[in-house]
């Protein structure tokens, strides 16, 4: 166990715990308004202060953990499945299929993905399910390219050739014999991807295209922070800090896993 992995696991487990038991941890109802206590600075009663409708920022942030984690995990699962399968196919078959898939990867990598996501989301009804799918469908190209590169060298190795000679089906060779050899980078990319998917989700919520009020999300609390930038610094500081720590946690986890699963680096 290396330092990065330990820190990563601690942060991620705290986040998962918070998301699962949000109801029991949060001191107030996250959408309960209290107009007599608007824009209160942090105090013992309201740890992170209150927002423009008197809602407790701390409780809202606790409930936001659910949204952010689920968007991150589901979006990245979609991207990982697409990226891995396309990469395997592209690298193994080569030829025209490879050419088409890699051209598609180039196109996606040259495109400002955030613009595409913004465009698609703005045309649909804002919902976190749409966001999960759209982020998933746009963030697979890097992984596909990486997996393809690995498969290109693996498929020439003797154990793959002998598997072919033994008459095994293509899908068996791909998923049972080749996939385990690329699984390390896939897992690392998965963890890194969660961090960046959470960043994208919070940015969309910040712009008003993600989680819709009154439901809380780190991004839309920051929107209030921006609106009340002159008087309420706590509305900006704490939610951003939460996003930051979450992303750091998943990045540490990725880095730690990479070191752990690469015996050469130890």
């Amino acid at each position, binding site marked *: 166990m290396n330092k990065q992995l330990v820190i990563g696991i601690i942060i991620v487990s705290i986040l998962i715990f918070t998301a699962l038991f949000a109801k029991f941890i949060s001191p107030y109802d996250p959408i309960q308004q209290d107009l007599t206590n608007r824009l209160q600075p942090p105090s013992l009663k309201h740890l992170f202060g209150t927002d423009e409708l008197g809602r407790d920022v701390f409780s809202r942030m606790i409930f936001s953990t659910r949204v952010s984690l689920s968007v991150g995990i589901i979006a990245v699962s979609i991207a990982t499945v697409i990226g891995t399968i396309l990469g395997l196919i592209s690298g193994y078959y080569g030829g025209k299929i490879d050419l088409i898939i890699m051209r598609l990867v180039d196109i996606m990598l040259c495109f400002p993905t955030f613009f*595409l996501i913004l465009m698609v989301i703005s045309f649909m009804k804002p919902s976190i399910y749409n966001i999960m799918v759209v982020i998933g469908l746009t963030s697979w190209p890097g992984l596909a390219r990486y997996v393809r590169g690995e498969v290109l060298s693996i498929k020439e190795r003797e154990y793959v050739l002998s598997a072919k000679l033994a008459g095994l089906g293509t899908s068996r060779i791909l998923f049972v014999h080749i996939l385990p050899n690329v699984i390390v980078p896939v897992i690392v990319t998965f963890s890194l991807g969660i961090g960046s998917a959470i960043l994208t989700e919070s940015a969309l919520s910040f712009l008003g295209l993600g989680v819709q009020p009154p439901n809380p999300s780190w991004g839309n609390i920051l929107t209030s922070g921006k609106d009340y*930038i002159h008087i309420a610094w706590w509305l900006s500081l704490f939610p951003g800090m939460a*996003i930051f720590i979450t992303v750091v946690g998943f990045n540490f986890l990725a880095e730690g896993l990479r070191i752990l699963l690469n015996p050469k680096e130890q």
Partner: protein
Amino acid sequence: MIKLLLNRIVVLFITFIGITVITFVVINISPGKPQDMMDMSTRISFEAKQRLVKLYGLDKPLHIRYFNWFLRVIRLDFGTSFKDDKPVLKKISERLPATLLLNILSLGIIFFVGCTIGILSAMYQNKFFDKLTTIVVFLGYSIPRYWLAILCMIVFGIKLNWLPISGLRSVNWEYLPFVGKIWDILKHLILPVAISSFSGLAGLARYVRGSMIEQLNCEYIKFALSKGTQRKKVVFYHAFRNVLIPVVTILGLSLPDLIGGGFIFETIFAYPGMGRLGYEAIMARDYPLIMGIGTITAALTLLGNFIADIVYVYVDPRVRYK
């Protein structure tokens, strides 16, 4: 070499068509058609609506519409904005210089600062400076850029009142002397440029550090050092030249991120660039403007990659003489 560049141009052109097809299809298959907006007005008759649909060619099948649109784009005709009937090209060209200014400045800073940090941490590997920058770089990689922007606005703009927090010019810009005008714009640029380069810096510095360490362990470096060449010269002249090559490609690939990040970034700073225009266009469902901005952004990105390719050929003789 000319063959190589021609080959690249063909690939870039295919990529460009791919990007415009994706944008076009996404806009057209998404729910909410432009003619639906007309339904909101009850006074419009069915015939009038049909006439408008015909006028904009909305009754034609998708591929024909794309083809017509593409023919017009080649002649740089992006149509007129739904919102105020101004030509899209004019709206974009009003905003483009500000965005280019921001991105070129940021790229320059990312390049110089990123390389310097990378080289220094490689030279003093595992010393205090290296450890410090590794942490800063790691944090910079994870920080939400727009949050950093808001925090800096609070600290430098509101609490300390050192820097302006929105726009590119002060209200009294017209009346300032020449030097004052430039100083005013610079002051407005400091925060956006600093924050926009900060997050791009992280990846590059990390990359330069890694490759520099690899290069410094090579035989030719040991040889150069043992024949008495100064360490400074060995690091900056011999080793860094080999690191520079992939750096060019990385910078080229970071362009879409920089431009894409501009959409949220420029909106926060009320920066009069293309990103904010794009955000406003998307919110107003201004189809011609969205298509125009998408196309120009893609073209700029591809141009950036093409320049990176040319530089690549220039700095790496192995590519040139292949």
